[in-house]
């Protein structure tokens, strides 16, 4: 490698602007989302061939529970990462929100109140993260490593080695209820939320500003975008979605332990990155994230049917994450090598 090559590598890449855009059909066929669809179909077929229990309406319905809660957070996390920030505290927010709901339960709060408290706790936690990042100008990765310990720490202080149980029957609907036949409430909620987030990111001016901030926050500020405020809103949004996931998870499990949702943050971020969102911000799509959520659900559920332990599945998830990101880079290298 010559010095010039190295400097080119160290410098942020200048954006390549083609003379003519590819036709929408070609762009669609060779997009990241298309690759994800192919991967998803391949895993689906592999699952169906590997085990006879897979192609069954109830099995497929159970499958959705694997990714819906994490997927809901991934939707908001995608926006946050596109804007150039990250939130590692989402799993801890789930734990804290669940603990607060448990506390409220002890005071005799009913189901609507419990849901409200779960969402409000998420919002407050998100706002706390957002305020630290935007008001004090701190790096979000460290701030949220800190709040991750803080939020889960509070859950541990309240609960210790105890657990809250005895959530009301009506509360169980959110995580265990079915809207129609095999279609669960969680799945319907996920579809609705995915549509809302798709609209927000791809069809509103707010969504545009998220991309602009991720690509160049300084230029965004000079263009009149209120960078700090948008980021603050995104942190709040991520917090609320974590609160929502907490309501679903608590309702599904029927109990609260301080160790609830341990390690979820890594899976959520894996979903987002697998979905084609650039970890450094600036690009990504909701379609990709939804597809990635489905892929992760398929992988874990399929391996589960084959009696593969959860910890071994995590090898697949980890390798999937690295491979899916490395492959296009290697492919591009090889193609550039041929062109020269």
């Amino acid at each position, binding site marked *: *490698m010559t*010095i010039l090559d*190295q*400097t080119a*590598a*160290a*410098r942020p890449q200048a954006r390549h602007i083609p003379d003519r855009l590819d036709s929408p059909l070609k762009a669609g066929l060779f997009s990241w989302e298309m690759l994800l669809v192919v991967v998803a179909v391949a895993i689906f077929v592999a699952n169906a061939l590997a085990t006879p229990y897979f192609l069954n309406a109830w099995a497929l319905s159970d499958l959705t529970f694997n990714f819906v809660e994490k997927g809901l957070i991934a939707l908001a996390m995608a926006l946050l990462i596109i804007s150039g920030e990250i939130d590692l505290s989402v799993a801890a927010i789930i734990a804290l929100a669940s603990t607060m709901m448990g506390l409220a339960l002890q005071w005799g709060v009913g189901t609507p109140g419990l849901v409200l408290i779960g969402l409000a706790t998420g919002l407050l936690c998100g706002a706390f993260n957002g305020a*630290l990042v935007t008001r*004090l*100008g*701190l*790096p979000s*990765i*460290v*701030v949220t*490593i*800190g*709040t*991750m*310990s*803080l*939020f*889960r*720490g*509070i859950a*541990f*202080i309240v609960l*210790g080695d105890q657990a809250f149980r005895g959530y009301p029957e009506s509360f169980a609907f959110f995580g265990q209820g079915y809207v129609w036949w095999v279609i669960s409430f969680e799945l319907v909620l996920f579809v609705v939320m995915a549509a809302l987030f798709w609209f927000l990111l791809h069809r509103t001016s707010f969504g545009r500003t998220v991309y602009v901030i991720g690509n160049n926050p300084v230029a965004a500020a000079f263009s009149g975008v209120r960078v700090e405020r948008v980021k603050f809103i995104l942190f709040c949004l991520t917090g609320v979605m974590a609160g929502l996931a907490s309501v679903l998870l608590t309702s599904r499990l029927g109990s609260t332990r*301080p160790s609830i949702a*341990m*390690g979820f943050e*890594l899976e959520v*971020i*894996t979903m987002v*990155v697998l979905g084609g969102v650039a*970890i*450094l911000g600036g690009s990504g799509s909701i379609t990709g994230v939804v597809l990635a959520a489905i892929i992760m659900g398929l992988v874990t559920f399929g391996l589960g049917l084959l009696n593969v*332990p959860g*910890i*071994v*599945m*995590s*090898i697949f*998830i*980890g*390798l999937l*994450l*690295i491979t899916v*990101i*490395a492959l296009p*880079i*290697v492919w591009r290298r090889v193609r550039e090598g041929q062109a020269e």
Partner: protein
Amino acid sequence: MIRSLARQREIWLAAAIALLIGFVAIRFPAFARPANLMSVFNDYSILIILALGQMVVILTRSIDLSMAANLAFTGMVVAMTNAAFPTIPIPLLIVMAMAIGATLGAFNGVLVWKLGIPPIVVTLGTLTVFRGMTFVVSGGAWVNADRMSAAFISLQRGWFLGLPVLSWFAIAAIIAFYLMMTRTPFGRALYATGVNPTASVYAGIDVGRTKFLAFCISGMVSGLAGYLWVSRYVIASTEVANGYELQIIAACVIGGVSIAGGIGTVGGAVLGALFLGVIGAALPVINVSPFWQLAISGSAIILAVILNARGEKRGGRIILKKAEAT
């Protein structure tokens, strides 16, 4: 100027630790006895060693989330080797642990160096892969005391010149890292890479290779910690040090290592780890439930980041304006 700021920070942190010890000692004088402080140092020796490795990586604007998983895997392999071949001398096992750890670290490093994948993504992936591998090699089984050889367990428990051997491991690591950071071109390259990668390239530093080597070092250190951990707690399992990667990063952040790269010292990282150590040791003494520890270290991280941000607001470009003015 950066250096004096860092030194100032170390003094403040040392003062905070002394204050903390003094505060606890008012009610429980035994806490400040040298023997007790020595045992706190010994208890947190492994964290100190790990924090030094993490610091090197963070200096180059990277992060290694896979250290704890690397530790678990290496610890498991070393323990299983010891159980199968008890005659292999322990020093050889330690070298083996460091080699395995460095290999895993090199895997991270190659992905960062050759493919340019962001370190946080790479190590997020390998974190789960390494821990999964631990399960696969062990079949989910534990290796416990009765399967480890006596020498394997007792080596770090021995005493040498008035200190446990485990503490000497930490002291040796501190000296080695101090010499590397302040007395070698590689140490300068680590700082330069973090402060300004583009300028570093013009200065003839291979930025990618420097990052690669940093990951090798953090891996090697994790491997060493793997042996120390397994022989200290006399158990090797898949769950060993689960979630510990955050403690390691916390020690660095509290010690003033900037997550943006280029700022951080050996002294800072060590003090950061000791700060967590003193808190951890003080809680049971002042009769606070250990369940408070997590929330307190979380608050300490947030507070440290706020203080770091104050210290780092330095104008790297002001030099030019000054030059114009004169």
